[in-house]
């Protein structure tokens, strides 16, 4: 009798374990498939020129997307400049005052913001920045990406700070360290790893956004790093090239997709390595 139950338990264990392995495979298959397919379609266009050259005029073959790579970097930089500080400070506030009515409203709106379609954020940036400036610009694009980054960073910061045991806060206060300094120098570093992951996720999301850039940063076929001018980005490059009627361009769109995925992957790995070195709570 005992033996039967023992076998039944082992069988259940094997069953559930197999299911979870199956789940892992289901998650990984699309990733590898996407990587494989984009590489297969785009490999013909991936060469040194692709990274260092400007797009060629219509009708000529070759050329690259140097401006789009730099543009995406600038747009993410602008978005981060806006999104990271605002997100972190808002997160600190929510973690510090978990019960206030204002905190409740902020938390609710943050969650709503997290679910807003990115194209709507693009429209908002268009109305707030593009129309008054009377031109598309990198600033407007960065603003749109920044808004998209805020909710994710806010909520991760809040959650991660809340995971830091209250005893550290009390220890800091008990040493006569002012509250704000306790939060910034003791609590925040202890939550650093998690907050960093949140930032990474939001950067990855921003890097992959196309819709909010279409009517803010617009895209640019020429070299420009001026913040008040339209600027190229990899996603808009992909969008334009994928719908173009030239095989050459389509192949470059595939190549750009592959490069974008790999860049996000590299970013992930860098963040992982950096955060692994820090002490953990």
């Amino acid at each position, binding site marked *: 009798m005992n033996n039967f139950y023992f076998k039944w338990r082992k069988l259940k264990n094997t069953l559930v374990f197999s299911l979870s392995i199956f789940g892992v495979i289901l998650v990984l298959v699309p990733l590898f498939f996407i990587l494989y397919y984009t590489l297969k379609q785009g490999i013909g266009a991936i060469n040194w020129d692709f990274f260092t050259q400007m797009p060629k005029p219509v009708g000529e073959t070759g050329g690259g997307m140097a401006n789009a790579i730099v543009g995406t970097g600038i747009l993410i930089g602008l978005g981060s400049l806006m999104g990271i500080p605002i997100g972190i400070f808002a997160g600190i506030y929510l973690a510090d005052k978990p019960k206030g009515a204002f905190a409740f409203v902020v938390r609710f709106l943050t969650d709503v913001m997290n679910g807003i379609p990115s194209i709507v954020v693009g429209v908002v940036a268009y109305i707030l920045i593009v129309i008054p400036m009377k031109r598309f610009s990198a600033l407007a694009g960065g603003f749109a990406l920044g808004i998209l980054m805020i909710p994710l960073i806010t909520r991760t910061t809040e959650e991660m700070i809340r995971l830091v045991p209250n005893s550290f806060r009390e220890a800091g206060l008990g*040493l006569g360290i002012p509250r704000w300094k306790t939060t910034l120098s003791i609590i925040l570093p202890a939550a650093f790893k998690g907050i960093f992951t949140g930032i990474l996720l939001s950067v990855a999301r921003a890097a992959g956004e196309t819709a909010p850039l279409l009517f803010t940063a617009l895209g640019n076929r020429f070299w420009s790093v001026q913040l008040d001018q339209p600027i190229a980005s990899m996603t808009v490059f992909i969008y334009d090239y994928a719908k173009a009627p030239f095989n050459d361009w389509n192949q470059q769109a595939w190549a750009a997709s592959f490069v974008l995925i790999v860049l996000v992957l590299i970013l992930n790995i860098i963040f992982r390595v950096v955060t692994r070195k820090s002490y953990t709570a």
Partner: protein
Amino acid sequence: MNEIVSSTTIADAKHDEPALRMRTLNLNAFFGANHALKDISLDIRNNKVLAIIGPSGCGKSTFLRSLNRMHEEVGGTIKGSILLDGEDIMKKDPVHLRKKVGMVFQKANPFPTMSIAENVVAGLKLNGHRNKSRLKEIVEECLKRAALWDEVKDSLHKPGNSISGGQQQRLCIARTLAVEPEVILMDEPASALDPISTAKIEELIFELKKKYTIVIVTHNMQQASRVSDLTAFFYMGQLIEIDKTTNIFTAPKNKQTEDYVTGRFG
């Protein structure tokens, strides 16, 4: 100094008394509707160890926390007065108060993102002390005073939570010493430690009282009898009896105290 005659329970305890360091007068504490402390009046004297004993929920931790206003962090309010060197602590900035009245917690809580050395001087560094060679000296001084130096002197750069639980607790004591408090509050500092680490903490308390005034909350009556000069027995938010520790444990005046220290309840 505000020399108001306090309740008679104190009178018995002060014959060969050193100078007054802290005093509570009709101290009441509330958590919402919960009346956690009722009219506590007692004196805390220089270079003495005052132990506070009593069953769980008797208000001893609340009392301890109110002495450096840490009760505010958990949503408590108090009525009555607490004096430090004759001044009302409720009129002081809590940041300044907590430098003078330091606290060691039940669970060792070294800062995880700082090294052992950084932990010791965290209170100083974060309050703007920048003199590196002086800070280095303080690290050594305080670790020696906390009887931890010999064990960690070769690993000062390691994370504060990489050492054993007992060592961590002594590190927390060293960290408290670094801000040069007058009074050290200890909230069951050894309750999570093994007997050997506990013995080390107790020896340390014995050493520390030469320079500091100590208030210790403990569940362990043997510990109270070993380390303290005075013992206060709390029950249901009231101060039942305070006296010399030997008297409390050998000839308590109050029946409830006697029942508690002899293990008949609690």
